[in-house]
């Protein structure tokens, strides 16, 4: 009888530790992805291409889409948008909220993340203030143990506050 109890306990403990490992793994991966998204925010706000160079996979055919336009490859994104846009703005803030991360594949080596965005800035030339809300899609692949952005797509429109429900 004792043998059966010990076998059962071993089985339960094994399953629990596997599940715990999976959770740990998943939390670690989720943190890695949200850290990358935070570094992208920093990169846009500070006109710093480094977080993009570190976290985006540069490959032939890479496409990074921004509100209807696309950047072919990482260099185009950094040199034509990230770096010059900061210089053209008096101030610039970009916020990602309601971030959802989904892991896919047998080895969970692919992830996609979606988020709401809010972009506020002031154009130096015209003093015009921009306030846009929108959505962001990021696609990631885990390569040699590191998550890399393989595609991004953002779209935004002039921010319109939600009308309060009136009774």
């Amino acid at each position, binding site marked *: 009888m004792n043998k059966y109890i010990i076998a059962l306990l071993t089985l339960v403990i094994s399953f629990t530790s596997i599940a715990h490992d999976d959770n740990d793994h998943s939390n670690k991966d989720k943190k890695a992805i949200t850290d990358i998204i935070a570094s992208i925010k920093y990169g846009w706000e500070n006109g710093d291409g480094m977080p993009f160079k570190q976290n985006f996979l540069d490959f032939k055919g890479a496409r990074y*889409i921004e509100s*209807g336009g696309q950047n072919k490859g990482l260099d185009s994104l950094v040199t034509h948008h990230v770096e010059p846009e900061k210089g053209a703005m008096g101030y610039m803030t970009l916020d990602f909220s309601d971030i*959802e991360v989904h892991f*896919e*594949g047998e080895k969970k080596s*692919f992830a996609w993340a979606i988020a709401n965005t809010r972009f506020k800035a002031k154009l130096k030339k015209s003093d015009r203030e921009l306030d846009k809300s929108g*959505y962001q899609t990021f696609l990631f692949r885990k390569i040699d143990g590191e998550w890399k952005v393989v*595609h991004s*797509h953002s779209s935004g429109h002039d921010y319109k506050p939600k009308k309060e429900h009136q009774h």
Partner: protein
Amino acid sequence: MKIIPITLVAFSFLACVISPVTFAHNNASSKHRTYLKGSGAETEPGKIVTQFHKAIKLGNKNKARYFLDDNVTIFEGGKVERSADEYANHHMLSDMKYAAKLYTEVLEHKVTLAGDMAYSVSRTRSTGQFKGSYINKEGMETMVLLKEGGKWKISHIHWSH
């Protein structure tokens, strides 16, 4: 009395000129998207993308709904729809009316497979008359597809232009 033959000739002439133009316009807007060779459109998930667009163009709501995961998230025109039913009962209908009137040329398309997951990225140009205006717009599309229970479904769409 001479007015009748002149009117007939004028009508015949106008009919000859207008008919081919109208026919050509209808013909263009009824054309389906042609996908580029080697883009991955011929793969299983690629076929889901092409068939989904075909169903939207033809106004086949049930078929278009079939290709979507129940919990699909769709970003379109600054709005979000968080289920296939929500999209099917709202924005899908206006997308069908829009797609039926326009010809959409695929400028770039790439489907990338990673096991039971795939993503499709495309750039298109849509032209034609819609609600009295001439449309000539470039559009971007990102789709995430997942294979569950042996069937590929679209789990996420991001459209922008």
